[in-house]
């Protein structure tokens, strides 16, 4: 059954014409390639036109950013026991020395506790980066890779390894996918998460090889069980000691393997090279990038090959995959192609994506220019909304899309916005409310510039705020806001603007971007 939305989608991957790049398009770009923007930022991009706007966002390394707190995290909280400690605890076990054993257990528990504190600090550190960075795409892509190569601290219980992995994602955020894949088979967090440190020459553990094929690079239907078994052999000996990657030669299976049609004494790097040589790999990553930045597409389980897809997404993903292959897996040219395409700005793609909890919170702070207030409260809310960063639910990452929103998370989503706007805590009482005052009136500056009278007209202000927050001003919402303003004095003040924002952020459409 053809649906109305599809008719509003163009297949054209040609560059969008500057004349077609207006307020709605610039706003869309800011949300999808970042975490939204203020009216001023939207107008700036409109003035620049699509080429300059997209390049500014993509070439973020030209934007200076003194990254906060690079060296604040302690690498040694979960360090492995020293040789001496190992001997002492073995001796205590041998002699059933309960006191010494209890001491070791206690030390371990203290370290675990300290590490839980540190991982919480890391969550807040990352959240702060996302809120304040002038290079939003860098953080958005770091979050994308975190969801793609999903690793949870809940399993590995080593915050520093999570940090090292996070920095790797950031360093290669719009870099080369191949580098990421070579990096991930050397990454202590991933090796621990998928048990490759337990893989032995004569007893290979298949976890890492399986997930590389199924979830990280190829997708179901593009490999066989035998390829997994052989891949696991290639990855034997890839492990880590403390915070360092180690290749254990004596634990590596040097025999001949046959993977996806290639054979030889393949090692981990050879395994990755074979995967990158598959057309399915460029297809798979392009599809995932498209799904994340443009529009939902059927997962690999439902449609293993891009050709199995339906609708305009198929042509778009094919173009992106060709771009990716031509660029030898560089990600930036792929994103450039997408962000400049007419397809990306199809009316049917605008405001159709459910904001992830991170996008909801960070996007509100950045686009409404309100205080972040309390990173701890925000971090707790992320957990309640189902996106605890550094703790994805499984190796599949977050399901995303509609699964973000149910009756429970909807109230959390609405209430965390009320907290950002007013300081009223989502739980608890006003006595503990955050007292920083938020003033949304500067948001009206762009409206005033264009039409000074409109900035004082409640009806026009309501429309303007709706277009900023929802990207559109549907009549039912505009009517409700106008009626509200009329019943409360019909004035444009700081308070009435906050009230308007409270109502808008509680609207179903506010969950979309």
């Amino acid at each position, binding site marked *: 059954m053809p649906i109305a939305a599809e008719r509003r989608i163009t297949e054209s991957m040609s560059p969008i014409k500057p004349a077609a790049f207006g307020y709605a398009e610039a706003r869309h770009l800011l949300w999808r390639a970042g975490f939204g923007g203020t009216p001023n930022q939207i107008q700036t991009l409109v003035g620049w036109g699509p080429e300059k706007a997209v390049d500014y966002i993509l070439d973020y390394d030209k934007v200076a950013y003194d990254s906060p707190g690079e060296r604040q995290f302690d690498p040694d909280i979960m360090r492995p026991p020293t040789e001496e400690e190992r001997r002492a605890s073995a001796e205590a076990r041998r002699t059933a020395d309960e006191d010494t054993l209890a001491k070791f257990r206690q030390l371990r528990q203290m370290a675990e506790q300290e590490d839980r504190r540190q991982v919480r600090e890391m969550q807040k550190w990352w959240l702060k980066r996302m809120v304040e960075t002038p290079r939003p795409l860098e953080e958005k892509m770091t979050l994308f890779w975190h969801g793609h190569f999903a690793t949870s601290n809940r399993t590995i219980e080593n915050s520093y390894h999570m940090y090292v992995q996070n920095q790797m994602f950031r360093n290669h955020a719009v870099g080369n996918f191949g580098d990421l894949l070579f990096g991930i088979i050397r990454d202590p967090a991933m090796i621990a998460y998928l048990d490759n440190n337990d893989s032995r020459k004569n007893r290979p553990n298949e976890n890492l090889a399986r997930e590389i094929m199924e979830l990280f690079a190829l997708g179901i239907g593009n490999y066989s069980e035998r390829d997994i078994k052989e891949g696991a052999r290639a990855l034997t000996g890839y492990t880590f000691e403390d915070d360092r990657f180690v290749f254990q030669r004596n634990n590596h299976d040097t025999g001949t393997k046959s993977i996806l049609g290639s054979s030889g004494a393949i090692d981990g790097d050879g395994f990755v090279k074979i995967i990158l040589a598959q057309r399915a790999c460029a297809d798979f990553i392009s599809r995932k990038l498209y799904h994340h930045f443009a529009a939902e597409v059927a997962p690999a389980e439902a449609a293993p090959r891009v050709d199995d897809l339906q609708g305009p997404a198929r042509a778009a993903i094919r173009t992106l995959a060709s771009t990716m292959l031509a660029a030898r897996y560089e990600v930036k040219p792929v994103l450039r192609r997408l962000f400049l395409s007419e397809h990306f700005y199809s009316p049917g793609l605008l405001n159709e994506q*459910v904001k992830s909890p991170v996008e909801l919170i960070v996007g509100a702070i950045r686009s409404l220019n309100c205080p972040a207030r309390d990173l701890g409260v925000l971090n707790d809310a992320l957990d309640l909304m189902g996106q605890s960063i550094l703790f994805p639910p499984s190796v599949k990452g977050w399901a995303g899309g509609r699964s973000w929103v149910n009756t429970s998370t909807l109230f959390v989503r609405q*209430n965390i916005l009320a907290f950002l706007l007013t300081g009223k805590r989502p739980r608890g009482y006003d006595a503990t409310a955050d007292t920083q005052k938020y003033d949304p009136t500067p948001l009206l500056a762009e409206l005033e510039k264009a039409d000074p009278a409109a900035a004082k007209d409640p009806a026009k202000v309501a429309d303007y705020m709706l277009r900023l927050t929802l990207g559109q001003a549907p009549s039912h919402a505009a009517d409700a806001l106008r009626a509200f303003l009329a019943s409360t004095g019909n004035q444009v003040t700081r308070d009435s603007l906050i009230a308007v924002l409270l109502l808008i952020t509680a609207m179903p459409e506010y969950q979309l971007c």
Partner: protein
Amino acid sequence: MTTDPTAYSRRHFLFNGLMLASAAATVPAFLEGTAHAMTRRLLQAGTSSLPGVPDDRILVVIQLSGGNDGLNTLVPFASPEYYRARPGINIPEGQALPLSGADGLGLHPQLRPLMDMYDEGHVAIVPGVGYPNPNRSHFKSMDIWHTADTTATGDGWIGRYIDSECCGTGKGESGRPETPAPQDAAGGPPGIAIGRSAPLAMQGRYVKPVSFESADLFRWSGEEIHPALKETYDKIARTGVTEGVPAESTAAYLMRTTLDAQVSSDLIRKAVAMRPQVAYPGSDLARQMSMIASMIRAGLKTRVYYATLGGFDTHAGQGGPQGRHAQLLGQYAGALRAFYADLAAQGNDARVLTMTFSEFGRRVSQNASSGTDHGTAAPMVLAGPMVRPGLHGQHPSLRDLDDGDLRFTTDFRAVYAGIIEGWLKGDSKGILEGTYRPVPVIRES
């Protein structure tokens, strides 16, 4: 086939909706789905109109967080090894409450209210519950119990049960995640957890539980800021899907969810606003249990409720017949007793089974700080008039230890299987992804 968007209006929803509106992808599917659900229910009427039907049955889970000391809960007072291992923190033989039908085992004296229920035949105890290669991390072991999987991965076991009831799925990957489960009835969500966040155990692939610390927080907080806001908010939330919004769009899905949230919020808040019919003790667990009793009394269609009591990580100064651990056990038993008295006054007690567990027990020997460290097996308690009362299975030996720890005698998944098969009338093999001989904790009726 209608695509009239007003079909989603609140009026329509109230008259036709047995399912939550967000469950429906399109108008026709919404109506068909409802009709289908009703037909299925009618087809099952042969069994489901009998008393004690699965549809009427409720499972309440009480989680004791931190690792409850099983040996001071179900005390092996006839065992000299127990007293040797715990010179400072044992329960003296004369103070343990001996269980009839269980030689040498007794309850902690603070569990007197539980003892009374046991004597009435309303309590089943499974001693020595655990799993192979016990994990001593609170988080990992809790996840193992929640997922019923020793790798601690996958969806929650209760979530999988609710999924299988609603969507005919088990743990498998089939189905379309973008199609939310047809949640049963505008009578409330299928699972409610009292607490800050919803436990993993209740997270299904399709059906997600509702959770709130107090029902007061299960609502939009903006409404307290100005009364005029609430009026406008209600109007927006209750509009449902508005004209011009394609029925299958994400926007329409969000509009339906907003409407659902508003309806559930009202329903739940109204339910817990009712005064309980008995007096509850003043503990936090008692507060949670009285909320649950009120929701049951209000007739919510919720099948599973979840409550939590924390503080069981007694590494230091855990005490014996009195002290920290004793106090926690007292809170637990007092809340449970009041809960069943409340349910009995409502006439709902036979519909409710309560299962109590903790992520692990504690080591047999006390440590240097007059406490106990993380251990392994511990007893599970099942309460309610429909349990098969008494002791189920062997208490672990205190002579044959595994590196100072108890060896488990019953796999926790066998207890889950007993609950799924005997109480919820589900398929334990599919839900638990394995075959466990169900522990017969439920009366054959």
